[in-house]
């Protein structure tokens, strides 16, 4: 066994997670709070990202929560049927039954965000029945007067609002309630493409014993190297830059490998 192989055995690879922002059944791109441009069919996009080396796919129905509905299960099953890498679903899941329906239609994980803030018990309910590993809590956070504050209904500018919860309090509570993973979306960076918010991610990581995923800010392959070197996040999520083709997942993995980071081929 080579030394390189022995080293590889020590830690899991850093995950590159491609998020499909979906609106009315189509992938959309653009800065989230402005106009959206059509970027293709979700099943085709998911297959393309898989082929390019994505480690995980998230299907995020961006307007579901604000419109008080959830994802279309049969449509979800259509995507899951063809996919042989992990699939998470986000958007409007606000009851245990809806979470179970997503899992039964081929999702491996459900990601809950605004509904968990409405009713934090939802985290426990899903974790107790389906296991913590199925429950991802997504958190939208933005600095307000020097405090990272949690935001809700961020799918559109009209519905978005700040909550009274501090981000650090909320992720600790989510973990205590049984979340299996936290996706921290740093809104000040989101769509700006200037890199992930390393300071905020490090502050979050220090509170958690479950995996943390970085979200918001990726604009170049080098930003993924920066976030994995600067923080102990388990993965990094991006949406827009992959949809537009500005950055290819293969380029990200190449940059990570060149930097000596653990990466799945």
């Amino acid at each position: 066994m080579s030394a390189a192989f022995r080293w590889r055995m020590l830690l899991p690879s850093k995950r590159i997670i491609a998020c499909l922002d979906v609106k009315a059944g189509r992938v959309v791109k653009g800065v989230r709070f402005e106009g959206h441009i059509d970027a293709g069919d979700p099943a085709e996009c998911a297959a393309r990202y898989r082929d390019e080396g994505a480690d995980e796919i998230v299907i995020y129905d961006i307007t579901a929560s604000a419109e008080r509905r959830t994802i279309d299960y049969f449509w979800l099953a259509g995507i899951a049927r063809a996919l042989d890498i992990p699939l998470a679903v986000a958007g409007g899941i606000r009851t245990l039954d809806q979470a179970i329906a997503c899992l039964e239609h081929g999702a491996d994980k459900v990601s809950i965000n605004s509904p968990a803030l409405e009713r934090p018990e939802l985290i426990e309910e899903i974790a107790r029945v389906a296991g913590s590993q199925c429950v991802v809590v997504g958190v939208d956070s933005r600095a307000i007067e020097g405090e990272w504050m949690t935001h809700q209904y961020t799918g559109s500018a009209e519905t978005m609002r700040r909550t009274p919860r501090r981000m650090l309090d909320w992720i600790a509570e989510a973990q205590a309630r049984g979340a299996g993973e936290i996706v921290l979306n740093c809104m000040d960076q989101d769509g700006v493409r200037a890199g992930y918010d390393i300071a905020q991610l490090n502050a979050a990581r220090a509170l958690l014993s479950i995996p943390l995923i970085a979200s918001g800010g990726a604009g170049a392959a080098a930003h993924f190297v920066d976030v994995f070197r600067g923080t102990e996040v388990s993965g990094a999520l991006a949406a827009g830059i992959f949809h537009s083709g500005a950055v290819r997942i293969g380029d990200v993995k190449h940059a990570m490998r060149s930097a000596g980071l653990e990466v799945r081929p």
Partner: protein
Amino acid sequence: MEVAVIKLGVGNTASVLFALERLGARGVLTDDPAQIAGAERVILPGVGAAGHAMHKLRASGADEALRAFPRPLLGICLGQQLLYQRSEEGAAEGLGLLAGDVTALATSRELPAPHMGWSAVRAERAHPLLAGVASGDYFYFVHSYVCPVDAQTIAIANYGRSFAAVSGAGNVFGCQFHPERSGAPGARVLQNFLALPC
């Protein structure tokens, strides 16, 4: 080929059924002992807690059908752990088809639990289940408990410590990773399982 996929109540069994479909096999979700006994292959999937899953298996009588099943049987993730004698998770009794006990992963800042992600797997011995799989290929894991490294181990992975990524004895096999979500290497393991001689 008909594959009985054991129903444990809640779980993402759809992804296992879809993977079988992609390989041209027919997965049937069931907890009926007669249907299990008549299947050509059995897959015991599993998410959730060991105690709850064993309770479900005992309630349906599937536990005895699994113990008596004479053809290849594959436990996936929690399903692998259930094959052993005991699990530290809720001090649950397992099926006892493989010897040894399942223990919890130690966690730390560098190694958060669950172990969720892609890890390299190394073969410990040549086995038809791993035909066409290279040592060092990556598989997708989601778990907080691990099966012991011993004579039943076919392949290992590492997360703070080594554990049995693939294990087996006789007609009974288990893998800690999710082959249905592990890309081409995962599909190969499932295909190898379907091709095992009866």
